[in-house]
C-alpha cells in the first residue's frame, strides 16, 4: 500500500507541480538529480554518516513508563526526535537536501521556517557545507521565536522577516518560492515539509522515513511486536509521514496524525486542514487547504508556529482519502496541558507541536488495554516554546 508518486508527481489525485514556468526546469533538474543520487551507494553512505556522526542518530525509542502508569492503559513509547542535533526531526531532511544540493553544484540554500526549527537546521547544514543561506520567516513568527532568529544569524544565515499576508509560515513559503524564481542557477530551495511541487513531497518523505525505519526495528527489539498505533503531529506533515512511512504496509498499525485545532475546529482560529479544509491547488500542489468559498486561502491560527499552515502534504491527503491514516484535531489548550503533563511526569519538555500528538495519546491510552502499544513521535524539544506557553498561562517571562 505504501505508494510512490507517479510520473506526474501524484499520490492518487493529490500532488503535482503547480508552479510558475520559470521554476519548471529547476524542479525537473532536482527530480533527475534525486532519482540518480537516491540509489547511489556513496551518497547513501555519506548521508548515513552525517545522520549518525553529526545529527546523533539513531534517535532513541524511549518507554515513557511514568506516563504509561499514570494513564493506566496502553504502553507509550516516545520516538525521541527531540534528541537530534538542532533539537528536532528537521535536521534529517535538511542534511539530505543540503548534500543533494551540494552534489548538484548549488552554493546557496534558501528556506522557509515557521517555529524556526527548519530555519535553524538549514542554517546549520549551510554552515557545515560552507553554503550561503537565507531563511524566510513570518514577522509574527520572528517575534514568537526570537531565540531561533538569533541562532540562525549566529550560524551565518540571513533571516528575512516576511510581512505579506498573515506574516506566518504560509507567507514565508510564498516568499521563498518568489526568491527561488528570482535566483535559480546557484540556489536550492530547501523546503522543510512534505509539501510543494513534486519532487519535494517525495524527497522530504524519504529523508524523514528514517524515523519509522528505526522505530520499527526498535519496537520489534523492545517488545517483539509492532505497535497498535503511531501518533505524530501534522502541519505540512514531515515528521508524521516520516513516522508513518515504514508502517504503511503493516495494516494493523493505526496511523494517526494530530492537527492543530487552535481554539477549536468550530472557530475561525484553527489550522486543522483535514478537519476543516477541502481540495484545492496552492503552493505547488493539489491537496487539502483551509480556504473560503472563493478559494481564498484562510488565515489559520495555532499556538504552534510550526503547525500554523493552511495545507497538508499530498501524501497525507491521499492516506486520509483511502482511510489508511486518520487525522484528529487537538486544541491549543489540550496541547498546552500535554506540554505541562509530559514535563512533570517524564521530565521531558516536548515541542508544542509534538505536544499535540502527546495530547491525543493521553486521550487514547486510558481506553486501551495494558498490552497495547502506542508510539508517539516527539518531533522536537520544547525549550523554544517555554515563553509562549508561559504567556498562554498568563505569565510573562523574559526568556527570549
Amino acid at each position, binding site marked *: 500500500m505504501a505508494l510512490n508518486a507517479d510520473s*506526474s508527481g501524484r499520490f492518487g489525485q493529490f500532488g*503535482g*507541480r*503547480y*508552479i*510558475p*514556468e*520559470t*521554476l*519548471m*526546469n*529547476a524542479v525537473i533538474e532536482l527530480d533527475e538529480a534525486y532519482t540518480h543520487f537516491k540509489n547511489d551507494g556513496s551518497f547513501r553512505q555519506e548521508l548515513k554518516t552525517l545522520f549518525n556522526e553529526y545529527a546523533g542518530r539513531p534517535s532513541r525509542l524511549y518507554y515513557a513508563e511514568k506516563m504509561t502508569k499514570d494513564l493506566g492503559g496502553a504502553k507509550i513509547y516516545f520516538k525521541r526526535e527531540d534528541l537530534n542535533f538542532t533539537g528536532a526531526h528537521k535536521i534529517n531532511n535538511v542534511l539530505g537536501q543540503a548534500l543533494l544540493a551540494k552534489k548538484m553544484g548549488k552554493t546557496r540554500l534558501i528556506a522557509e521556517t515557521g517555529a524556526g526549527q527548519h530555519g535553524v537546521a538549514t542554517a546549520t547544514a549551510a554552515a557545515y557545507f560552507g553554503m550561503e543561506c537565507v531563511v524566510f520567516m513570518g514577522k509574527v513568527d520572528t517575534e514568537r521565536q526570537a531565540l531561533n532568529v538569533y541562532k540562525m544569524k549566529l550560524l551565518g544565515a540571513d533571516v528575512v522577516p516576511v510581512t*505579506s*499576508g498573515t506574516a506566518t509560515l*504560509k*507567507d514565508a513559503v*510564498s516568499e521563498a*518560492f*518568489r526568491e527561488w*524564481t*528570482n*535566483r*535559480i542557477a546557484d540556489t536550492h530551495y530547501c523546503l522543510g515539509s512534505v509539501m510543494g511541487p513534486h519532487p519535494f513531497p517525495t524527497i522530504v518523505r524519504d529523508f524523514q522515513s528514517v524515523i519509522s525505519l528505526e522505530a520499527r526495528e526498535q519496537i520489534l527489539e523492545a517488545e517483539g511486536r509492532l505497535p497498535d498505533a503511531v501518533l505524530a503531529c501534522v502541519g505540512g506533515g514531515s515528521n508524521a509521514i516520516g513516522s508513518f512511512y515504514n508502517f504503511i504496509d503493516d495494516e494493523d498499525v493505526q496511523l494517526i496524525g494530530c492537527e492543530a485545532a487552535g481554539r477549536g475546529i468550530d472557530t475561525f482560529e484553527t489550522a486543522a486542514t483535514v478537519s476543516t479544509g*477541502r*481540495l*484545492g*491547488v*496552492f*503552493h*505547488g500542489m*493539489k491537496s487539502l*487547504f483551509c*480556504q473560503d*468559498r*472563493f*478559494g*481564498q*486561502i484562510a488565515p489559520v491560527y495555532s499556538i504552534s508556529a510550526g503547525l500554523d499552515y493552511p495545507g497538508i502534504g499530498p501524501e497525507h491527503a491521499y492516506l486520509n482519502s483511502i482511510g489508511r491514516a486518520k487525522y484528529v484535531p487537538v486544541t491549543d489548550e489540550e496541547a498546552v496541558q500535554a506540554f505541562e503533563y509530559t514535563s512533570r511526569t517524564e521530565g521531558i519538555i516536548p515541542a508544542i507541536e509534538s505536544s499535540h500528538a502527546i495530547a491525543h495519546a493521553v486521550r487514547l491510552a486510558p481506553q486501551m488495554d495494558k498490552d497495547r502499544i502506542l508510539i508517539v513521535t516527539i518531533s522536537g524539544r520544547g525549550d523554544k516554546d517555554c515563553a509562549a506557553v508561559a504567556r498562554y498561562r498568563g505569565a510573562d517571562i523574559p526568556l527570549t
Partner: protein
Amino acid sequence: MSRISEAFAHGKAFIPFITAGYPDLETTRSVVKAAQENGADLIEIGIPFSDPTAEGAVIQNANAAALEGGVTTDQVLDFVKGLRDNDGITVPMVFMTYANVIYSYHEGGDGPIDGASGEDRGRYGFCRRCAEAGIDGLILPDVPFEEKEEFRQACRAAGIDLISLIAPTSEERIDMIASDADGFIYVVSSLGVTGVRTKITTDIGAITDRIRSVTDVPCAVGFGISAPEQAAAMAALSDGAIVGSAIIKIIGKYGKNAAPEVGKYIRSMKDAVRNIS
C-alpha cells in the same frame, strides 16, 4: 478562435494589467474605460487572490487591498459583464489569477449558484461564467504545461483560451509549450516576480524566434516593463508588450482619480509600440 486575435490586428499590441477592485470596482471601471479609449489592445483583469506567489510587492499589495475591500470572484465576474453590457468595452479581456481561485470556485460553498448543479462549480462553472461575462481567456501563472489539461478542458468547453507562459528558463520546453498554445503566448521577460525593472537582460529575441519557428500564435512580453522605450524594445522582438506593476503604481498614487493618469500613460505606451516593425 476567440476574439484575442483582434488584439494583434492594430500594429504591435499594448496590454495593460489591472487588479479588479483596487482600490474599488468603480475605479477599476473608469480605468478600464480609459485604457480602451487610449489604445489598449487587450486588457488583463486580475482577480485578487490571498497569496499571489508570482507577484512582486506592488501587485501583492493591490491584491490584499482589493480583498480587504471585500471584492469577491462573483463580484468581479458581474463587474466584467457590466463592462461588456453597459460600458461599451469591446477590446478582448482576459483574467489573470491563480489556480485555486478557479479550481475551488464555490465548491463546497453555500449551495448552488443560480440553482445550478455541482458541475457548474469549480473550473467548469467558473469558465462558463467567464464566457457569459465576455472574458476571452485565462492566465494562470501557477499552472505550467504539465498541469494545464484539466484547466484547458474547462476553458475549451466554455470557448475561452488558456494562455501559455514561456520563461527565460524554459529553454528546450519552448517548442512543446508554443506548439500547443492558444490565444497568445505570454513571454516572461525576466527571472523573479512581477515588478518594475530598470533593465531586462534576457535574450528575448532568441525566445521569440524559437516560438515563431513552431507557431503563428502571437506572443507578447511582460514582467518588468514600465518605460515606453522598454515597451518599444520588447515589441520589436515580439507582437506586443504587457505592463502591470507600473499601472498599479499609478492607481496606488492617484486612487479613485487614477483613470485620466492611467489613460495618459497607456496612450504613451501604445504610441511607443504601435508602429514598431
